[in-house]
């Protein structure tokens, strides 16, 4: 492959799938050095990717899935090193190649799409330069115009109507979805044997996500490449993969066909993941996996999942001996569990995996929803415009209408979900409700009192009864303040409590969110993401608010932790009858928490109604688009087991 193929055909011949090589990974082990010593990030990972096949690696953060991918391309960060294992692509030893040989392999035989398309593209180079470079690095004799033709054709394939305009753009001039499609073109332009996609849509909006995944599928099908799709999202994995490997604590703990993993999971962790995942299909009580994954330096002689396992029941074998991957008797997966066959495998495989998992989960009962009462919060005809006033030098601009006649209400003890993509006005709505930004027009009434123009005492009283929980629990807590001070601060500001009373109350609050009172003396960095979000919730609860504005409270958390936080919130709401304004882009979460739904699109509420109705019988096109975009394992592309499938437009 020294010259570009005929530029008029972006894809090599389909029967070319035979020329592709399979990937064998055996016993891959990666250690990472830190200042506190080194730990094992990937531990004896073994799997295979056949030519043209899509293999999913699924796991939560820290499970080792990204490190595995980076190791395959020798792109590990400096402090990480492969300490054992074999990785072969066809006849090539991927871990042994060096220098020029390695360079010519990357981007030509193996290439990789990364999570964040904004930072992954060079901000100072046009798309054309970056794409043409990708071609000419491996086709030295290709002229510039040949290369441009080639990437232009591929840009069309992934859905760009006007490739020339995209080629002339800089990355920052493109939207997130467009950038990621540019990345896909960059990686697929040399028709590699293997494409590794590491959380390719995690940083994108739901509707863009589907578009990018389709682009990925089309480009991959056109080239005939095999793919490793890495994700934390079981729905996405289920929809797009032929086979799945589930990773936990650096190991693959269960492998099988996508259908087998979703419908007959044998490992308690896989079952737990499925049970803790909210789905669009129906509202049910989520069953979180208790506890948290082991810390990096925790040395466990037995199975790493034992401390969280519902199945171990104190059996010594689990704590003593790490289980090996073995075919599950009576099941259809391979799992690393001493008692894999103990799982009650559902006798009939129902059409949807959710039903199957439901049968395995004992506690499927939902708390009763309180009836709707008079609205506690009432928002009427809210309008917020930005940038209306022209500056001294600038021409008078039209201004952006972030909120356009938005109205909704929430009753005590109930949850309204405000749904929309980034830029839809969700956060502006939240800030307007909390009186953090002044609306251009419209009203916000709380408990029957109009807050328009409220100042001083009235505003302070409202602020005490309406609290905010933000998306990123890392930046929402002051790193130099102890947890106790963070939670106690509102009490000192608003309640004039003395030190002993504050301490007592902080302790109670920590217990109510599942932490311990002695945690109050620690600093935020000592806690995991989920624990920090608990701390943020405790802080929000300290003044006994009647309204909680939750701005994407679980979006940055892992699935099993997300379930813990959602359950916690549900319990708190039930106990204290707090009204929730729940802002999210994730419809599956919405399904699980909302009583009513307001769908925001370009600043306007396009659909409003009871959750059940909106999700089952959406009346607005945009709502339908949103629902269709949620990855759904039951919608798995037909016959994807064969590998190379055409799904071109």
């Amino acid at each position: 492959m020294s010259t570009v193929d005929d530029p008029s055909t972006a894809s090599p011949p389909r029967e070319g799938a035979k020329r592709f090589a399979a990937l064998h990974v055996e016993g891959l082990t990666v250690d990472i050095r830190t200042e506190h010593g080194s730990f094992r990030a990937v531990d004896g990972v073994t799997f295979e990717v056949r030519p043209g096949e899509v293999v999913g690696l699924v796991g939560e953060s820290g499970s080792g899935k990204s490190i595995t991918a980076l190791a395959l391309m020798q792109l590990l960060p400096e402090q990480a090193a492969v300490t054992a294992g074999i990785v072969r692509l066809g006849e090539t030893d991927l871990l042994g190649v060096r220098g020029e040989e390695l360079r010519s392999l990357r981007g030509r035989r193996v290439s990789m799409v990364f999570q964040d398309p904004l930072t992954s593209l060079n901000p100072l180079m046009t798309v054309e330069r970056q794409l043409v470079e990708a071609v000419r690095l491996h086709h030295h004799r290709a002229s510039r115009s040949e290369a441009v033709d080639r990437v232009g054709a591929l840009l069309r394939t992934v859905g760009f109507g006007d490739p020339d305009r995209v080629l002339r753009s800089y990355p920052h001039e493109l939207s997130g979805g467009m950038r990621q499609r540019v990345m896909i073109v960059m990686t697929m332009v040399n028709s590699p044997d293997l494409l590794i996609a590491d959380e390719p849509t995690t940083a994108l909006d739901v509707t863009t996500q589907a578009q990018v995944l389709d682009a990925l599928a089309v480009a991959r099908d056109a080239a005939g490449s095999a793919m490793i799709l890495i994700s934390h999202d079981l729905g996405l994995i289920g929809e797009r993969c032929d086979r799945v490997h589930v990773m936990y604590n650096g190991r693959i703990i269960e492998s099988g066909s996508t259908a087998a993993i979703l419908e007959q999971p044998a490992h308690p962790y896989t079952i737990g993941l499925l049970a803790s995942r909210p789905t669009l299909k129906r509202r049910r009580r989520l069953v979180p996996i208790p506890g948290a994954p082991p810390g990096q330096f925790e040395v466990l002689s037995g199975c790493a999942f034992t401390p969280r396992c519902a199945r171990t029941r104190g059996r010594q074998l689990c704590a003593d001996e790490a289980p090996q991957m073995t075919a599950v008797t009576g099941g259809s997966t391979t799992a690393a569990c001493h008692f894999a066959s103990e799982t009650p495998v559902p006798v009939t495989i129902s059409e949807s995996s959710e039903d199957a998992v439901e049968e395995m989960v004992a506690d499927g009962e939902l708390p009763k929803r309180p009836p709707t009462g008079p609205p506690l919060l009432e928002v009427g005809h809210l309008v917020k415009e930005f940038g209306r006033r022209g500056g001294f030098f600038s021409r008078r601009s039209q201004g952006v209408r972030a909120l356009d006649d938005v109205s909704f209400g929430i009753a005590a003890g109930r949850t309204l979900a405000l749904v929309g993509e980034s830029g839809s006005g969700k956060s502006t709505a939240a800030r307007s409700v909390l009186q953090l930004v002044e609306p251009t027009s419209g009203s916000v009434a709380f408990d029957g009192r109009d807050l328009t123009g409220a100042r001083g005492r009235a505003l302070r009283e409202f602020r005490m009864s309406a609290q905010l929980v933000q998306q990123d629990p890392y930046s929402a807590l002051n790193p130099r303040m102890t947890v106790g001070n963070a939670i106690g601060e509102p009490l000192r500001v608003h309640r004039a409590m003395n030190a002993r009373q504050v301490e007592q109350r902080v302790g109670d609050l920590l217990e109510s969110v599942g932490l311990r009172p002695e945690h109050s003396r620690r600093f935020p960095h000592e806690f995991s993401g989920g624990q920090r979000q608990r701390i943020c919730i405790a802080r929000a609860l300290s003044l006994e608010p009647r309204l909680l504005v939750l701005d994407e409270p679980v979006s940055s958390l892992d699935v099993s932790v997300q379930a813990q936080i959602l359950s916690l919130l549900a319990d708190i709401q039930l106990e204290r009858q707090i009204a929730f304004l729940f802002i999210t882009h994730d419809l599956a979460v919405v399904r699980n928490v909302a009583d009513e739904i307001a769908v925001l699109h370009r600043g306007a509420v396009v659909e409003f109604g009871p959750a059940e109705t909106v999700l089952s019988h959406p009346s607005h096109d945009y709502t339908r688009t949103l629902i269709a975009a949620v990855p759904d394992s039951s919608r798995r592309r037909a016959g994807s087991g064969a590998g190379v499938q055409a799904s071109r437009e």
Partner: protein
Amino acid sequence: MLGVTTVMFALLRAVPGDPAAVIAGPAATPAVLAAVRAQYHLNQPLVYQYGHWISSLLSGNLGTSLTYQEPVVTLIRQALGPTLQLVIVSMVIGVSLGVLLGVFAATHLRKAPDLIVSGFSSGVLGMPSFWMGLLLLLVFSVDLHWVPSGGSVSILSSPVEGLKTVALPAITLGLGVAAVQARFVRTAMVEALSGDYVRTARAKGASERAVVWKHALRNALLPLITITGIQVGILLGGVVVIEDVFARPGLGSVIATAIANRDYPVVEGTTVVLVAAFSAVNLVVDIAYQFIDPRIRR
């Protein structure tokens, strides 16, 4: 600009010493001194002197030297060439050496080259520039006779001689610039090299050289543009000392002589020019950003 000129004006007047005494010579009688003062408005109140100076400044008149009886503009024009030559050559040496050393250090993080570069930076920064200038002078001029020990020849009219005369002072100043640049380049490169787009470049098969020099360096140089602008300012200050050490004609020696002679118009005039030059450089820097970083282009 106005602020700087005002402060400078006040400071200059606060320095003890009487320019009239310098002009009239040591044997002057009090009557002569008084006449000289009157001629140059030195007997007027400071506010009047300031107003007079500012108003002529605004009409482009920098006044007349008290010592040489020549227009300040003429003195500056004669001195500007050699100084400009020195500043430009110093910056070229400083920036290129600084970038090379910085990249070298960043690509060999915590290894010997990194330590050597950081040692070089500390060493140069810790050494007064006049002393380094004297050392260079002793070795290359006095002992080895490679280059002349002073004077200035225009590079444009005779490049070889011009470069020879500018070499030592430019290296002296350039090393100082390089020391600072190397540190900033190193930091910026370390960050750039850990960037996602660098990983992308490697993943698509770019050679390590292309990764470093094409992908990472351009991004790393962005924050350096500002620092380079500031360094030009620092360099303009350093020029005063170095021109003196190497007995080069130039703005620096003009200003040094003028201060000694309490030649107010010359000191004021040259300062105005230097401040204007510094402002111009920073304006160019701000405009340069627009061209280099597409993200702030409109």
